[in-house]
């Protein structure tokens, strides 16, 4: 986990890489988060940010992700999806647009979906991010233990990091 510009009083953005880092393409969320982290500690990028950034990685389901999001002002989630599109395809959207296609780690037999978990947080009055954006990378091989991703997914890491960095340069969309 790393924080950049943490003393800044502008809204903090949490970048959260999701997935299992030892399950082939499922680890792409972690790899993109690592790439974002690497870029953030390179000084020239700091001027491009709309505010402070915190980067973390999780291999858990909806409830635990929700708990990690509580108290955050903005979040960018990065995860693998099996959506039938060519491996390495990158998409950027909102949680509502992508939740049903997100990683199994958001939706296991012993967990709730992230959207359901966020509903719980809302009902409990927990402070959630004003904005949650999702960057997905279409995966191919997620059922075999491997620290390496398939070539097209590995090749997408840098481009997906570009998308995250672009989001980090945008001001937080505050609710109306």
């Amino acid at each position, binding site marked *: 986990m790393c924080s950049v510009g943490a003393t800044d009083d502008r809204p903090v953005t949490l970048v959260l890489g999701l997935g299992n880092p030892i399950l082939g393409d499922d680890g792409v969320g972690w790899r993109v988060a690592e790439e974002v982290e690497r870029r953030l500690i390179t000084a020239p990028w700091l001027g491009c940010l709309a505010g402070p950034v915190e980067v973390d990685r999780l291999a858990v389901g909806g409830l635990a992700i929700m708990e990690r999001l509580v108290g955050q002002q903005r979040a960018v989630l990065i995860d693998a*999806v099996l959506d039938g599109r060519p491996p390495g395809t990158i998409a950027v959207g909102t949680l509502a647009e992508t939740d049903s296609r997100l990683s199994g780690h958001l939706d296991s037999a012993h967990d709730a979906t992230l959207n359901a978990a966020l509903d719980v947080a809302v009902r409990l009055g927990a402070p959630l991010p004003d904005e949650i954006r999702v960057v997905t990378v279409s995966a191919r091989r997620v059922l075999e233990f491997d620290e390496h991703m398939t070539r097209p997914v590995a090749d997408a890491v840098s481009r997906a990091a570009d998308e995250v960095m672009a989001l980090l340069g945008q001001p937080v969309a505050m609710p109306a």
Partner: protein
Amino acid sequence: MTRLTIDPITRLEGHGKIEIFLDAQGDVERTYFQVPELRGFESFCVGRPVEEMPTLTNRICGVCPEAHHLAAAKAADAVYGVTPPRAAVLLRELMYCAFYVTDHTTHFYALGGPDVIVGPDAPVADRNILGVIRKVGLEVGGRVIETRRGGHRVVELIGGRRIHPCTAVPGGMTKGITADERAEIEAIARQMLDFAAFSNELFGSLINDGPTRDLVLGDLFRHETYYSGLVDDKGRVALYDGRIRVVAPDGTEHGTYAPADYRDWIAEHVEPWTYLKFPYLKKVGWKGFVDGVDSGVYTVAPLGRLNAATGMATPRAQAEYERYFATLAPATNGHRQLVHQRGAMHWARLIEMLYAAERMLELVADPDITSPDVRAVPTQTPSEGVGTVEAPRGTLTHHYWTDSNGIVTRVNLIVGTTNNHAPIAMSIDRAARGLIRHGVVVDNGLLDRIEMAFRAYDPCFGCATHSLPGEMPLEVVIRDHGGETVGVLRRGD
């Protein structure tokens, strides 16, 4: 023959599914429960230093990393023939009990428990944590979150990280806890105990409700199998360490063995239609998916643990244990009876939650808990070792072989849910047979009951599959004997 296919709709659509074959009369002939397998974990581990295994195996899935972490650490202890100092054992068990309270809380309030709390006849859209909050109040939802937060905090204090602990190593722990940390854990344990007691009282009030009582006590999900679980030296439920006790369906003891001897007691049956194996009792033998004393099928997890044991090691859990058996399986002619209803798994889980919270308070009060003596450095040449804990979803066994340098040469894992694979398949089959007669009752009521049969076990195939859906949206595809689709049912249609 008509075939019904129930597919969980997930990002892994088509990988996990239930298929129901009907005979010419429209009755259930056979039900197949299929799940995919994550491949290659054993080969993934080969060639790595065995001391990496506790942090590597807890990445198998995000559901029970603490169980894998500790089973791996115990196996690594055995590989090196090293006995951790007492303080290290106390810390491991304390962390594990906090994890147990957290995990069982999650299941009861957010996953399978809503079938009981909200009621089995409630709309499926209400049988989730949101429905629970509507039924029992917002404050309870807040206590669920508070309990989970407390559990994560204890894991962080002892295990070094909130989710994937990293401090258990061959010979003990990498760190101890301070007096301030001990005090913080004690406060969390008291909150957990209060909530566990409340949860048991809540269940006691729900069991009188007709539909819920039918779900828990009814024969729809009843199987008379063997039961298995870790017990302490007095035969009481143990979660972190002990011997494995197995009882027959009539309650008589089948045997008790050291976890390292598991291969003398457990064998694995293979079916051609699923990747996952079906463990069974070797000395009884595999007779198929059938109940009874002649069938080697056994059940683990809360139902199995409470049946296999003779009691609970803490007072409030013991009182609840006695009430559980008096309510569900009263002794006859002085002979103890077992609880065979799968719906009782929910109640058994809450009794374990109470035990784990009580046990936390015992452990945190032990003067050795803050001892800095938490590591015995291994000095023996490594070779082979077995580590076993009771994971929330059943007995978890890690077995490693290494060369003389401690490099892993072979791995065998038997994970919690896999032990219950045969009973789960049998419960799904039972639900289908009870609800499909002469080709009718093929509707969402069927899907609901099959889901409940599945969820009561709190299955997690994360160790053996990538995922199955928490909400388990279902699709039923009806095919004729030629394989053509003749109808599709989806929830909400």
